[in-house]
């Protein structure tokens, strides 16, 4: 199963995944043209802020199996792609905008917008399609390509989990002095920036604390 694996600790909130997603799902596939399109293309990935300043999580369709959205769709317009069974797709022409899929989505990533591909409909359910068009051309998802800090990775889930797991084991090994802490630690400047963000957040939440 191929997926987009998220490393939230690496996300610095630049939202380039959002704009790359919108461009990949535009008619012109070009940033400067896409902003003039009608309807305006929408991102299907959402980098929303975390609890403290300077943190963010890029949230998108996880392509669940079984997918709750598929199970509740009364028109059966949500189906797995025949050529890419890992991908859950919405047939915009059959969508009746009932909102059921959005209600049951565990990640709240189904939104409703006008779609150039379904001009007969005011708005339809819109979500990540894992850039199936790009995948058919041998490319990966646009969000992953745009991410310059490797907060998003695309590949076989078990391989990605393994590499994350390896990093974790390296971190554990630090405790027994087998590798230098630098191998797994975030750069000190990024940690300082995050600590600063957390300090500001804390300050605003509990002004008097720390006296």
């Amino acid at each position: 199963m191929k997926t987009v694996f998220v490393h939230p600790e690496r996300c610095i909130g630049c939202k380039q995944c959002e704009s790359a997603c919108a461009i990949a799902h535009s008619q012109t596939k070009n940033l400067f043209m896409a902003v003039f399109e009608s309807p305006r293309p929408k991102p299907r990935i959402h980098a929303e802020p975390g609890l403290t300043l300077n943190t963010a999580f890029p949230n998108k369709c996880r392509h669940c199996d079984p997918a709750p959205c598929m199970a509740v769709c009364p028109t059966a317009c949500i189906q797995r792609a025949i050529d890419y069974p890992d991908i859950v797709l919405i047939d915009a022409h059959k969508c009746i905008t009932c909102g059921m899929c959005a209600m049951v989505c565990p990640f709240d990533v189904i939104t409703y917008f006008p779609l150039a591909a379904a001009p007969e409909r005011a708005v339809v359910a819109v979500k990540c399609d894992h850039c199936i068009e790009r995948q058919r051309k041998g490319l990966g998802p646009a969000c992953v390509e745009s991410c310059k800090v490797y907060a998003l990775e695309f590949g076989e889930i078990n391989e990605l989990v393994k590499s994350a797991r390896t990093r974790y084991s390296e971190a554990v090994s630090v405790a027994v002095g087998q590798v230098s802490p630098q191998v797994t630690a975030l750069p000190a400047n990024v940690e300082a920036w995050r600590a600063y963000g957390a300090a500001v957040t804390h300050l605003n939440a509990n002004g008097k604390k720390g006296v």
Partner: protein
Amino acid sequence: MTSFSGNGFKNLSINADTQAMLEVARKRGIETVWDRLAKQQPQCGYCNLGTSCRICAMGPCRVDPFGDGPQTGVCGADANIIVARNLARMIAAGASSHSDHGRDILETLHRVGEGKTDFYAVTDSAKLKRLAAEYGIQADGKSDQAIAKDLASEMMEDYGMRRAKLPMAARAPKARQEIWEKTGVYPRGIDRENVEMLHRTHMGVDNDWVNILLHAVRTSLSDGWGGSMLATELSDTLFGTPTPKMSQMNLGAIKADQVNIILHGHNPMLSEAIVAASQDAELLALARKLGAKGINLAGVCCTGNEVLMRKGIPMAGNHLMQELVIMTGAVEVMVVDYQCIMPAVTKTAECFHTKVISTFDKAKFPGAEHISFDPARALEIGKIIVRKAVENFAKRVPDRVFIPVEPVPMMTGFSIEAILGALGGTPQPLIDAIVKGQIRGAVGIVGCNNPKIKQDLGHTELTKRLIENDILVVVTGCATVADGKAGLLVPEAAEKAGPGLRAVCRALGIPPVLHIGSCVDNSRILVLAAALANTLGVDISALPLAGAAPEWYSEKAVAIGTYVVGSGIFTVLGIAPPIFGSPDIVKLLTEGLEGVFGATFAVEPDPNRAAVLIRRHIEKKRAGLGLSAVEPEKIGMPESELALA
């Protein structure tokens, strides 16, 4: 939810008036700066870290702070070069803003010299003559007008390329000037340093990040010891050097039964004319005819500070109040000049009868009425604007008027001349109090509001911690309003000071926190520091002084912080500047500068921790001067409580 929304308005501001107006905004569905900040979350990490570069069209580029992605821009600039160029350009923009403000005041002095004005005149003749002597102008037997003409003409050279050194920089102690010469940062011409900064940060010019930052220091010094100092000195010359007086502060400065005019921006030229026009008998009669009891003025931001210092005009609020003052429904006109005026104010004004009037041709605002300010007809234009306000009173909707608080008293007007006057003419009594340890040192708390910090929390908490520990505080800009609303700018606030400072304040009848002016008036801090250092025969960096900008937001604040550090004064910032993407530059600014300028920056958002950093620094400097001092490490640092409640 982020800390910028939800959890009630108490998380956004410490002030009752702000919180009450945010409730009005919520009920009426009016957007504020805090809503817009929440909508911007998460803000781009590259830009926050300073590692995005938009300088050329091979880019835009960014450097991955995690080290795996691109480490240079298309041109090859690494994080150090990109961060240095971005920071240098911020400083140039800030220095240019203060210096262009100074230029407008200088042109007004020139106009007075030529007799081409219906309003302006030399008010402080003694200061004019002192400046003339400083600039080597023969003043004997000449009229003030003739001296003004010669002085203005000579000062215009400060902006050019003929000078090897800015004349007012010679006010700094010899030791400081030697540091500037040795490091090649002695400021020459105001415009010259700013233009050279833009040149150096063009692609392919200066790529030595230390060299870029050294010129950034020079650029900032051309502001502190040039443009800003000139703005202060000439505003004093034209409008009067401030003297201590009582005034008031907070939204209660707006009066339900009067025509209210809000003066917002930074330049006192037009606001001085409006102060005069608001006393016009015909306009007052018209106001009364329309049912108003009078014409009331109230300031916001540094235009407010300027007329507060010289005329005692109350201030309605600081930076984050600018939209909220309109929501009282009692503002007939908000007159804006330039700097820190959010384009959002015209949108807020659309919800009420308030007219926003822009006045400077270099600062226009969509949705505002523009009345082009001409200094030759200043009083006439002032009257036109006041008339518009009076006439607009008829359109006020009484049901919508809501002024939630009564104003708080405060004391203002502490120019350096006034401080020395209170001390009996010399800085010696202040020095004696410092030597005896009654006063441990002095700190300037300056700078803006930033919605990322709970409004006024940084300013007021830091001020309280410092005065409790016998440290005299001087304030400018938005910090003034924060401390004024908190009741710290009255002589009775001596109760909140430590025993040493309390005794000094009681003896002199002054508050423990002295209002010294607007943000260009931070140059007064340099003048006072230089006077103290010269009296003692030491460099500024030897003195027990510090600066703090707990809630800064603007490029001007970066220029101020840099000239303060470049002048030898340790400075704590509450908001991180966009430099964390370059560990080398963070190290240079927080440690390395000590060996070059005898002062560094620190970043600390928690005011209680910032106070300890400052107290430790002051005790270290006291020990250096051979004065009684506490071991810096014995001053306990409060825990940084990062866990969320």
